[in-house]
């Protein structure tokens, strides 16, 4: 199994044995209550230097309130899993939190060019599916997984991938290093206090994120009884023992949408996106992050009940988003 080519990008080295040892020593197996508020959860489970994954993004069922809390707490030197993301990376970079990113897709604009040119952000190049495959391998406890794409691109040399000879067919195939983030943050429709969680509708890689990560913070629109999970076990997306903290965060994906619950706030999205395109996100961060103490305060002081109602009113589809 000859190595034909290999990327030279830095990557979080796959360490399935180390991950297993972490799970053995840190993850309770029984039903342990894990409710924390957003401040406690981020303070306790996101450390400077962590590799951070989140599922979906700032506008689409993402853990937006937790992303803002990371910025509010000024976490440093984070390495971000940039699959299917958009402005979240921009906010984390401009907030001084993120210095590295594995790129599937990230929001572009002057902020990105400036951050890269100034050396404030180091990027490594992948693609969205290549990143979700890496997470799948991490979620299966494997050191690597093959993929039939990515070979021949100019992202490949900037990555941790290798082109090898398939020992079964003799043909070339790309191997990707498994990814086990230090922490993942995932916004869900429903969770219980122990961390059992349900996501309705499509997602990017939420289940794999939870299984692959050493630390997992779930924020949930609703907290429900554990017995509710037992009534329809096929609907459990994430089982409790993988989760470290549960944050009750109604409108936690704001300004994004949560399918079947509320629409995204168009005006806010334009404001945020505009900041990335102007390359100046500080006013946005000041208004929506630094000048409020918490997600709840932001909802109350910056959004208001009337808009909250309007966003709920605009989301009129229910099919598939409840049991």
């Amino acid at each position: 199994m000859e190595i034909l080519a290999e990327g030279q990008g830095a990557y979080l080295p796959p360490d399935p044995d180390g991950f297993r040892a972490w799970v053995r020593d840190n993850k309770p197996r029984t039903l342990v209550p894990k409710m924390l508020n957003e401040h406690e959860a981020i303070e306790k489970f996101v450390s400077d230097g962590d590799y951070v994954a989140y599922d979906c993004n700032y506008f689409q069922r993402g853990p937006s309130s937790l992303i803002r809390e990371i910025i509010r707490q000024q976490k440093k030197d984070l390495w971000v899993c940039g699959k299917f993301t958009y402005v979240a990376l921009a906010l984390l970079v401009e907030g001084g939190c993120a210095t590295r990113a594995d790129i599937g897709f990230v929001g572009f604009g002057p902020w990105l060019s400036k951050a890269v040119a100034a050396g404030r952000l180091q990027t490594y190049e992948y693609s969205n599916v290549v990143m979700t495959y890496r997470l799948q391998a991490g979620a299966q406890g494997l050191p690597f997984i093959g993929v039939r794409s990515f070979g021949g691109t100019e992202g490949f040399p900037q990555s941790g991938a290798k082109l090898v000879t398939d020992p079964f067919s003799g043909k070339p195939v790309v191997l990707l290093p498994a990814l086990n983030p230090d922490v993942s943050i995932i916004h869900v429709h429903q969770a219980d206090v122990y961390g059992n969680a349900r996501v309705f509708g499509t997602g990017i890689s939420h289940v794999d994120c939870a299984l692959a990560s050493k630390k997992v913070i779930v924020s949930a629109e609703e907290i429900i009884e554990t017995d509710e999970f037992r009534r329809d076990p096929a609907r459990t997306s994430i089982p409790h023992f993988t989760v470290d903290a549960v944050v009750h965060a109604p409108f936690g994906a704001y300004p994004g949408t949560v399918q079947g619950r509320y629409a995204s706030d168009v005006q806010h999205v334009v404001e945020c996106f505009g900041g990335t395109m102007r390359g100046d996100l500080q006013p946005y961060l000041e208004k929506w992050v630094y000048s409020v103490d918490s997600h709840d305060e932001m909802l109350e002081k910056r959004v208001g009940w009337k808009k909250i109602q309007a966003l709920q009113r605009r989301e009129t589809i229910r099919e598939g988003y409840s049991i």
Partner: protein
Amino acid sequence: MTPATHFAEREHLICAVSRVIEEEKSYWVGGGGEPLYSILLAQRLYASGVQYMTEDGVIAPQSMMPWDPLMTMVASRAGYRALQWGTMNTAGNFAQLGYVDVGILNTLQVDRYGNINSTVLGEYEGGQGRRFGGPGGADTIAAQCWRTILMTDQQKRKFPERVDFVSSPGFLDGPGAREANGLPPGTGPWRVFTPWAMFGYEEQSCELMLMAISPFVTVDMVLAEMSFEPKIAPTIETLDPPMEEELEIIRTQLDTDGQTTGRGQWVEKRDGKYVFAETQGRE
């Protein structure tokens, strides 16, 4: 159907792509913008049963209209009444298994071999280039769908001899290069559409080949907006203009405020000929 007499060149682009969409093929399209508008238009006029999927694992939805620019992926209206919901790997796996015939993509740059850049304009090394968002799902689409359709503008800087960065694979360096890099055989670029022209690829050389032009431009105008000389098909067809029925759907259901299609130049029929319009924008 009635040929239109006043339309945006980007509307024309969407109409042209919609007409090559085939009912019996399966598609992977981005979550918004021109690629999606093309297949939604085709569903409404030319291929009602055609099925598409999106990157978040929505399989064969019946998206709720009118389309909203913020109604991108992982949104209820975009995934409405799909046949299946999964995740990104659901989409990736179906493509890797060969179940997806055609991918439709926007691109920043495309070169002679159909390579796609969505990462950087200028030098990647050193960090001084102008950075973009990366391949997203395009790398998988370009590698694993049997064919890909690219959509871009007809501009010199969009058609360099070699893209500044190969984010997603075309034919790479030419015949055999995809397979040598582990990509599935029999796949690759198929068409490039711009508002002004339709390109294919010459089978043997894997090089971009001009096949058709829009009724409001000449071959020379097209070639002037490319940084390299493509192969030229023996016969250059002229693309049909948009039809009123197509525009009606684009304007009332797909891009109601013209956010995507309203940009660029407008075209009108004057003295029996299609020419660039004096009036820009919808009436």
